[in-house]
């Protein structure tokens, strides 16, 4: 019943060998595999945690991006609204300017038309007044009146200034042709004599020739080449028309209108 000590020793050795064998073939590989797998799991958990952290950061980044985009969108919308307001204001201003310009053009056109109309009215009034005066003077004129005119012409020559008189005399002296005396009606002898007297005072033995010219209306005209010396109603009536136009133009200025085109301050 007691132990066989050889067997005991052999079993001790067998057991120690078994310990070595199992450590070599069982515990070592299994423990290493478990450690390796635990390390892998830990690494995967670390990776997962890292990925979760990365995902969190990405999420935060995208949220920030989204927030920035929203803010940018609001900003752009505000800018667009401001631009639209500015454009609307500009367009309104432009339209207002256009309306003002059109109105100014229209007013200018209206004023020009009115002035043109007034100018034509004035001119027509002047022409009519002059025509009436011319007609009246024509109807009133006769040879006796022209005789009076001849006398007036004689007096005018006589009343000339020394310088003018000398100039006229020099002109007559230089002229070797006949001096033509024109009148609307046939001058009487007295009238012709008065004119001859006056001209003889400038140039003795002057050669005169008397003609009739109805366009003079009433009056006498002395032609000496390039110059003329006259006293007639036609000339006065022409001056009357100019003076009338001048008077009506000034009247338009006084009434708030512009002076008539073609006339200056002196009525020329």
């Amino acid at each position, binding site marked *: *019943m*007691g*132990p*066989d*000590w*050889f*067997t*005991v*020793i*052999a*079993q*001790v050795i*067998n*057991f*120690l*060998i*078994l*310990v070595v*064998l*199992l*450590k070599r*073939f*069982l*515990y070592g*590989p*299994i*423990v290493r*595999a*478990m450690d*390796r*797998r635990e390390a*892998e799991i830990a690494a995967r958990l670390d990776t997962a945690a890292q990925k979760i952290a990365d995902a969190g950061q990405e999420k935060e980044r995208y949220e920030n991006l989204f927030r920035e985009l929203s803010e940018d969108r609001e900003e752009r919308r505000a800018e667009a609204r401001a631009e639209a307001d500015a454009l609307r204001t500009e367009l309104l201003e432009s339209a207002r300017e256009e309306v003002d310009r059109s109105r100014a053009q229209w007013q200018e056109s209206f004023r020009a038309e009115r002035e043109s109309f007034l100018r034509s009215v004035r001119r027509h009034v002047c022409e009519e007044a002059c025509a009436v005066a011319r007609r009246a003077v024509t109807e009133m004129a006769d040879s006796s009146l022209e005789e009076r005119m001849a006398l007036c012409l004689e007096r005018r020559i006589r009343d000339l200034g020394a310088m003018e008189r000398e100039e006229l005399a020099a002109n007559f002296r230089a002229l070797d042709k006949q001096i033509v005396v024109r009148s609307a009606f046939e001058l009487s002898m007295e009238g012709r004599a008065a004119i001859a007297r006056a001209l003889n005072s400038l140039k003795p033995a002057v050669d005169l020739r008397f003609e009739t010219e109805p366009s003079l209306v009433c009056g006498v005209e002395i032609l000496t080449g390039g110059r003329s010396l006259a006293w007639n109603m036609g000339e006065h009536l022409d001056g009357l028309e100019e003076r009338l136009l001048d008077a009506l133009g000034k009247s338009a200025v006084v009434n708030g209108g512009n002076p008539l085109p073609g006339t200056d301050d002196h009525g020329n």
Partner: protein
Amino acid sequence: MELSPDSTILWQWGPVRLNATIVYTWTVMAVLSASSWLATRRLAEGGKTSRRRNLLETLVTFLNDQIRATSRQEPGRFLPFIGTLFLFIAVSNSLEIIPGFHPPTGSISTTAALAICVFVAVPFYGVLQKGVLGYLKHYVKPSVFMAPFEIIGEFSRTLALAVRLYGNIMSGSIIVGILLSIAPLFFPIVMQVLGLLIGLIQAYIFAVLAMVYIASATSVQKREEEKKD
């Protein structure tokens, strides 16, 4: 009827006797080593885990948990010794159901050898942990007069380990043998099932007791370190 396979001498050359106990032990060793090698030879690097690998991992995890629960220390350095004790005894006892196989743990020589291994392993781990003097100190605590009792206790528990395992397994085998001669049908099977259970329990008890003895020798040092801290 043979009470121990030690008496079956298969080959003898002078004092060297090859008995059935040694042969059965070699058989158990071969079975354990071969199955371990087969299970672990294709451990892929981080690859898919097989059922066999899962079984072995479960077994190793169970052993680690038991060692950690008993010793309250990291199981790494105790696993080969305690694990081999458990596996050898459990496989030896389980192979008892194979007709013609006599478990080597049914031999007092085997259990004595295992008890001697534990008897040596206790001071080995103790000295490894805290040195020779540090280990010997625990024999004179709390008084030097306790040293004889401590030494006697060392021997008596070793003897108890050997005899307990031997008695249980040998008695189970003998009971099954006797019942086979009395009632050869059905009843021995029930007793064999019971014998399997007893064999696993005895393997567990042997391994846990061995761990307790080793832990008692190494935990002293740990308590002293805690006091120093």
